[in-house]
């Protein structure tokens, strides 16, 4: 649904970086470089952003 606020494993706030990550990767940037630049270092936090899919738009019509 919405991006998790924090990393499930370590508790770092990852939701903060989601919109920039999404915008930049959709522009064709390499996700690896984007995450490095955003300072999302640990692989537990990286998977939170890499594996996320926004589903609000899909759910919204069925309110």
């Amino acid at each position, binding site marked *: 649904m919405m991006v998790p*606020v924090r990393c499930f494993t370590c508790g770092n706030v990852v939701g903060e970086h989601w919109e920039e990550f999404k915008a930049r990767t959709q522009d064709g940037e390499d996700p690896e470089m984007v995450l490095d630049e955003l300072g999302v270092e640990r692989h537990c936090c990286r998977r939170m952003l890499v594996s996320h899919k926004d589903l609000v738009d899909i759910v919204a019509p069925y309110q």
Partner: protein
Amino acid sequence: MAPDYDVEFIDRGDRDREARFLVRDVSPAFANGIRRAMIADVPTLSIDEVRVIENSSVMFDEQIALRLGLVPLTTPDDYEIGETVTLALDVEGPGTAYSGDLVSTDDRVEPADKNVPIIDLKDPEGSETPQRLEVEADAVYDVGREHAKHQGGVAVGYRHLQTVEIVGDADEYGDDDPHILRGVIEEDGELIPTEEFDHDLTQRYPGKEVEVHDVPNAFVFHVETDGSMSVDELVTQAVDTIHGRASELKDAVQL
């Protein structure tokens, strides 16, 4: 207890949220005590109770409350355990409600990260009014032991400081596998983070056979905070809580 300990910074990250420092002459038990105190005993403010005035978004009230609870809030140090601050959020779609939209009654308390999306609000076709989220929330000052959202420290840990001893030459026709070591090594009193040689000892000591030893009672702490306070405040408050409990015990036990 070691009376003379020594603290030395190795590196500090940006925005006061990350630091690596070396502590010498403390026992392993005390080092672990500091680590645990940083995680569980330093109180922070975090949203705990949410009064929902209107929520026509696609998420349930409970889900919204959970997300709000996880947003770190900047925490002044003059609060008492259990004290509350009221925050409010009122956003109407179409658009996204962000953590930065939270308005607090105490201007020292604000979301540490302002770009965390709470919920996407739409203006659905066929509906008379756009989706809207209006809540009033109480942030409580409490310790990480009570709930993980109150933990000020994130990924707090330590390693031994290590030394590398050259014990001879490497086998001339041996396989040239890397010798990976992560942390900080000490060489003639100089501290070298292993990033400097790509965590590979064969790059720093080519053609040598080496042995790695722990330096007794020297610990390299890596501390990150979630933004509710700076690393300095987190560490000093953690040590203060240990001090407080130790003196409490001393007063309670009378021989």
